C-alpha cells in the first residue's frame, strides 16, 4: 500500500539524512522504526507526510505518488500540537471542517468516546494533561479516516503508566479502523508491544540496517520470555547498527545496548 522506493534526502547544507530507503507498509500493518539519534527517522516521516520532499526516489500510496500532504496520510508529532484557541471538540474536528455539521459532530463525539474523553468537548487544551492532549491529537488525526497514520515518538514525553494505557488506546483504535501505522520510537518495549515489524535504522547517512518480524500474538505480555527474546534481538540489532555496520556476534545484551540512544 505505502511504498518507498530508493528514497534519499539530502539537506541544502549537504547533510545526507537518508540514503536509499526502500520500505513497504501493508494495509493494517504496524511498523515501528528505531535507531540512533539523527539517523533520519523524523525526516522519513516528514517525507511521507508531504511536509518535505525527497531529493531522489519515489513515495507511493496505492500506486499514486505522494508529494504533498494527503488526506490519506495522518501524522502525530512528538508534542500534541493542539490549537490552543480551539476547544477539544473543535481541535478534533479541525481537519473535517468541510463536512456537514451533523456528520462532523457525530464523528467528533464518537472519537471522544473512543479515546475515553467523553465530556471533555468544551475544555481548552490547556486544561488537559499531557496524555489526554496526546489522545486528542490521535483523535484529530483519525477522524479524517486516513489510510496511514505516522507517529513520531508520540508517547516519549509521558510516564510509563500513561504510555502503556495509550498503547492500549492506540491498538483498540487500530483494531477497528485497520489503519496502517508507522511509528518512530526510542523505546524498544514500545516497539515490541505494538509492531508487526521493527525497522532498525543506521545513522550517517540514515539507512535501513535490518528488519525484525514480531510474531507474538496480541495482546502481548511484556513479561513473557518470548517478548524478552524479541526485545533482545532488537537491542542487538541496534548495537550492530551503531558499530558502523560491522556485524557483531550476538552475545546477549551488551553493556552499550542500554545506552544506544
Amino acid at each position, binding site marked *: 500500500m505505502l511504498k518507498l522506493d530508493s528514497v534519499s534526502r539530502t539537506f541544502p547544507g549537504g547533510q545526507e539524512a537518508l540514503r536509499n530507503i526502500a520500505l513497504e507498509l501493508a494495509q493494517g500493518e504496524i511498523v515501528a522504526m528505531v535507531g540512533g539519534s539523527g539517523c533520519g527517522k523524523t525526516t522519513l516521516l516528514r517525507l511521507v*507526510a508531504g*511536509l518535505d520532499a525527497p531529493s531522489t526516489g519515489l513515495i507511493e500510496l496505492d500506486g499514486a505518488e505522494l508529494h*504533498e*500532504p*494527503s*488526506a490519506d496520510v*495522518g*501524522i502525530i*508529532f512528538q*508534542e500534541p*500540537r493542539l*490549537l*490552543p*484557541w*480551539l476547544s477539544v471538540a473543535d481541535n478534533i474536528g*479541525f*481537519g473535517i*471542517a468541510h463536512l456537514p455539521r451533523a456528520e462532523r459532530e457525530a464523528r467528533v463525539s464518537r472519537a471522544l468516546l473512543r479515546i475515553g474523553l467523553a465530556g471533555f468537548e468544551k475544555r*481548552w*487544551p*490547556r486544561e488537559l494533561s499531557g496524555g489526554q492532549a496526546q489522545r486528542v491529537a490521535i483523535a484529530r488525526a483519525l477522524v*479524517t479516516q486516513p489510510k496511514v497514520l505516522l507517529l513520531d515518538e508520540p508517547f516519549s514525553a509521558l510516564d510509563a503508566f500513561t504510555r502503556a494505557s495509550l498503547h492500549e488506546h492506540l491498538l483498540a483504535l487500530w483494531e477497528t479502523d485497520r489503519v496502517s501505522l508507522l511509528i518512530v520510537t526510542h523505546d524498544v518495549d514500545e516497539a515490541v508491544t505494538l509492531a508487526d515489524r521493527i525497522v532498525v535504522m543506521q545513522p550517517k547517512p540514515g539507512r535501513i540496517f535490518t528488519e525484525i518480524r514480531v510474531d507474538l500474538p496480541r495482546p502481548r505480555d511484556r513479561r513473557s520470555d518470548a517478548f524478552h527474546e524479541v526485545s533482545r534481538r532488537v537491542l542487538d540489532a541496534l548495537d550492530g547498527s551503531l558499530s558502523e555496520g560491522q556485524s557483531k556476534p550476538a552475545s546477549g545484551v551488551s553493556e552499550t545496548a542500554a545506552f544506544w540512544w
Partner: protein
Amino acid sequence: MSDTTLVHPRTEAAPGPTRRAVAWKGWLGLILPVMLAILLEIGVSAGWLEGRFTPPPSKIAATLHELVESGEWFRHGLATGWRVALGFLFGAGAGILLGTLSGALPLIRRLIDPTIQALRAVPSIAWVPLFILWFGIFETSKITLIAVGVFFPVYLGVLGAVLSIDRKVIEVGRVFRLSKLETGRRILLPATLPALVTSLRAGLGLGWMFVVAAEIMGASEGLGFLLVDGQQVGRSDLIVAAILSFALLGFLTDALLAAATRPYLRWRDDLSTTEKN
C-alpha cells in the same frame, strides 16, 4: 490630583496579583485623592487657596453638570470622539495591513520595515507643522496626526505577532491541507489575536493622547478646545472638567475594546487579557 495617570488610559495589560487578595488594599489607593479633594474644598472655602487656580471639587462638578445640561459636553465630546475614531480606524487599519504584509512576506519586510522604523524615531508631534501645511488646520491634519500616532504601536505589535507564530502550528495547517486563505483565517488570525488586541489598546491610548495635541493646536470645538478655552478665560474648573472627560472617555473606550475582544481570548492561559486588570 492624579491627572497624568488618568488621562492616559491603560495601554499595557499588566498582569497583577489575584483580585480577591488585593480587594481591600485597592481601597487604600482612594485615601490620597479623597483627602486631597476634601483639603481643596476646605482650603478654598476658608480662603487659604484661590479658587480661580485650584478649583474645588464642588465647582468642577457644577461645571461638568452645566456642560452636560447645556448639551455642550456632548457637542465637544462628539467632535473629539469622532476625530479619535477616524484616526484610530485609519491608523489601526494601516498598521494591521502593513504589519501583516511585513510579517508574512520577507520581501515586503526588507522593503518597508527599515523606513517605518526610521520614521518611528520621529516624535509624532514634530509632523504637525508639515501636516498643517499639507492639509490645512481643519479636520484632515488632526486625523492624520492621530492616525500616525495609532499606526506605530499597531504595526509593531502585529509584525511581532506574525513573526513569532509557532512554525509547528502552521505545520498542523499544512497537514490538514489548508489553503493560504484558510491558514490566515484559522491559524494566523487566532494566533496573533492576543497581540493584536494589546497593540490596538496601546494604539487607542496614543490616539487619545494625540487628539489632545491636535486640538490644542487649534480647534473650534472638542474637549481639547475646552482646555485651551479654560486657559484663555482663566477658568481652571473648565480645564479640570475637560481633563476628567478625557480620562473618562479614554477609560471607557479602552474597556469597550477589551470587553469586545475578551470572548475571543478566553482560551488564553494567563490573566493579562482574560481578567479585568
